[in-house]
């Protein structure tokens, strides 16, 4: 469904991605794990078009998307829940969610999805008319995911959904990610919390200083001594 082929991306002079290649198949949860500065967020921003790769290609459903503007990529069905939430602070929860459906015209479908997302995140229903900036960290994360879902994406990319959240909330969020996947949305999950990410993913990739160093089914990675040593504390 989504394929990255030898992608090289730069942040100014810094060579951030050094030939990253991976694929996400329809219906999977694929996770990209790695430590700080490994290039995880750069990978995501390259996929969504906010950073243009210097070389390599990105294919989405067989078509090249690496030369498209970010909003064009979003229209094709790649939706992003960004790192650090980045919700629209001065808009209400409702408006935030509606922004997610910016390019959709089917009012009935939007209402249906809105109701479903509020079902998924009951907290958001309670905060429905509050401005996003007044939500707690966990609520903001739910809102970011909900907003990304409102576009009814073909593939949902999540950038560190566990960042800065209490363990109990992390477990809750990951359960919801599984639910979303079971309802048919393909997921690309980027995480530092390798244990959690690998426990729900189908396959995983390990990113280190801009290169994929290890890949395989999530179960195998979880058992791999290399991963255990580097990310899971022995």
């Amino acid at each position, binding site marked *: 469904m989504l394929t990255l082929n030898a992608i090289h991306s730069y942040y100014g002079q810094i060579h951030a991605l050094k030939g990253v290649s991976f694929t996400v198949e329809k219906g999977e949860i694929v996770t990209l794990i790695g430590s700080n500065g490994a290039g995880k967020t750069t990978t995501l921003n390259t996929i969504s078009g906010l950073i243009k790769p210097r070389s390599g290609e990105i294919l989405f459903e067989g078509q090249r998307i690496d030369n498209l*503007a*970010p909003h064009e990529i*979003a229209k094709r069905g790649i939706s992003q829940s*960004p790192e650090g939430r*980045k919700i*629209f602070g001065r808009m209400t929860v409702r408006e935030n969610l509606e922004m997610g459906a910016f390019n959709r015209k089917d009012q009935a479908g939007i209402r249906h999805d809105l*109701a479903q997302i509020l079902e998924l995140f009951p907290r958001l229903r309670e905060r429905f008319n509050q401005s996003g900036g*007044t939500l707690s960290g966990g609520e903001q994360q739910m809102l970011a995911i909900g907003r990304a879902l409102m576009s009814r994406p073909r593939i949902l990319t999540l950038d560190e959904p566990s960042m800065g959240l209490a363990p109990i909330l992390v477990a809750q969020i990951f359960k919801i990610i599984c639910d979303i996947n079971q309802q048919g949305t393909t997921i690309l999950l980027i995480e530092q919390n390798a244990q959690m990410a690998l426990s729900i993913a189908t396959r995983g990739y390990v990113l280190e200083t801009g290169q994929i160093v290890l890949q395989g089914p999530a179960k195998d990675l979880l058992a791999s001594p290399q991963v255990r040593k580097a990310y899971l504390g022995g």
Partner: protein
Amino acid sequence: MKTELRTALRIGLLGGLVASHICLVGMLETFAKRNLIGDYLSMGYLLLLTLFLFVGYKATQVAQKAATGLLCAIIAGGITGASLSDLVFLTQNFQLREIFAHASPALVKLLTLGQSKSLGLLIPIVSGISWSLFGGFFALLPKLWRRVLLNTLLLTLLLGLLRDILNSLLPGDFGKTLFTSSGLTYIGAGSSLFCGGILIWAFLTYREQQKLKPETSESRNSPLQKLLFSLLILFLLTFPLWSKSFLSNVADSVGLYIIMGLGLNLVVGFAGMLDLGFVAFYAIGAYTMAVLTSPSGIFHFSFWQALPFSMLIAMSGGIILGLPILRMRGDYLAIATLGFGEIIRILVISDFLKPYLGGAQGITNIGKPEIAQFTFKNPEHFYYLILIGCLIAWFIASRLKKSRLGRAWMAIREDEDVAQAMGINRVTTKLTAFAIGALFGGLSGAIFASMVDSVVPKSFDLLISINVLALIIVGGIGSLPGVLVGAVVLVGLPELLREFQEYRLLVYGAVLVTMMLYRPEGLWPEVTLQHILHKTAQPEFPVRPLPTPEKK
């Protein structure tokens, strides 16, 4: 107790500094020339009085117990008063005038109320203490009473300030009982305090009760609001008929600033792009109108033929400015737009374009709007044209705010990257903001050119950009009613208080600093912003039930 006393000391010293400053720059003397109430309370005394009250209020507020609070107020007020006495003493005994031109016998007379040397020195201290004590009592009042009192006092002062407008409304004899030549009579002030107090008390209690009731569609359009709204419309429609020509002039410039403010608000308030060169579009609109209609030019268009061109060319200016700076954010954007504003001004004044734009002399004899046989000539006529312009601009802006495009602007303002990831086209969204904003600027400029009959480069300096930006911020950034309030406060009031021209920028600066410290969200803010800036909880809205998803 110790910390409270220390705070009182600090407030008192700060108050003293401010009071001495007001005296030494000559504000007191100049302001004392205008009497607001009777022939005793002048604007000069009002300044000091407000300062004393504020000092007392602040000092009491920090204290825990009422008694300590009042003690603090006495100390703080005493210190503030004492620094004025000190000033009097220094002026009387040393040649202070060589350094401070305003430290004159006239100032001493004002501060000592004309009393003899030793008694005179006591007067500032005593009045400082007593007024601060009033300020202290004020701080101890329950909230409702505080608000009633404050609003009543403000209302009375406003009535005094707006004497020119109000007096022309009233029949001669009646006007004379209420108004003096510059402010209110004692009867006027008394009745304003009394009636205003009752009305404001009734209004505030009414609103408190309304708040408790669940919000329904009826309460939003209560008969009271309808009445006020109709009165407002009547006031606006008949304004030039009963007011003086000078006041129509003031209203015209307020209106032109409102149109510009609504335009810039789209760019700065909605889309979050700080534009410091907005005057460029105003200038483009004005010059287009001038070139197209002036008999010395080659086009000889009528006003109505030229108007769309003025707006369209200004809009193209907006797009041309927008294109190169699409990628810029924040500070860099502000500097680039600042440059654009200057480029336009320098182009207009240049020798290169002199044959077409008239250089420093500008263009005169600009076409006047005509409808059938009627020609718009004086400020009263233009008032209606500007009013219509304001209404159209308001209508467009308020529709845009709720539109899809408006949402896209706000998303861009909040976070450009995320907005793009939501599928918003950054290029077109930003360009439309610049384009429509510039269109409003062009409209305002075109009417301005026709109204004043001539355009000169001097009318389009940086100060206009700053004024428009400031009125948006003072009114409440992103808020439409805020633009109106901001324009009235920052453009209208200074025009009415012309006699204080030389202190205008000083007061302007002081108002801006105070606003940003105590009310950063503006006078009539957007609701969400107010809650975020003051970290208050938002009122719980009843959540409308949503349809539950159908089970598949």
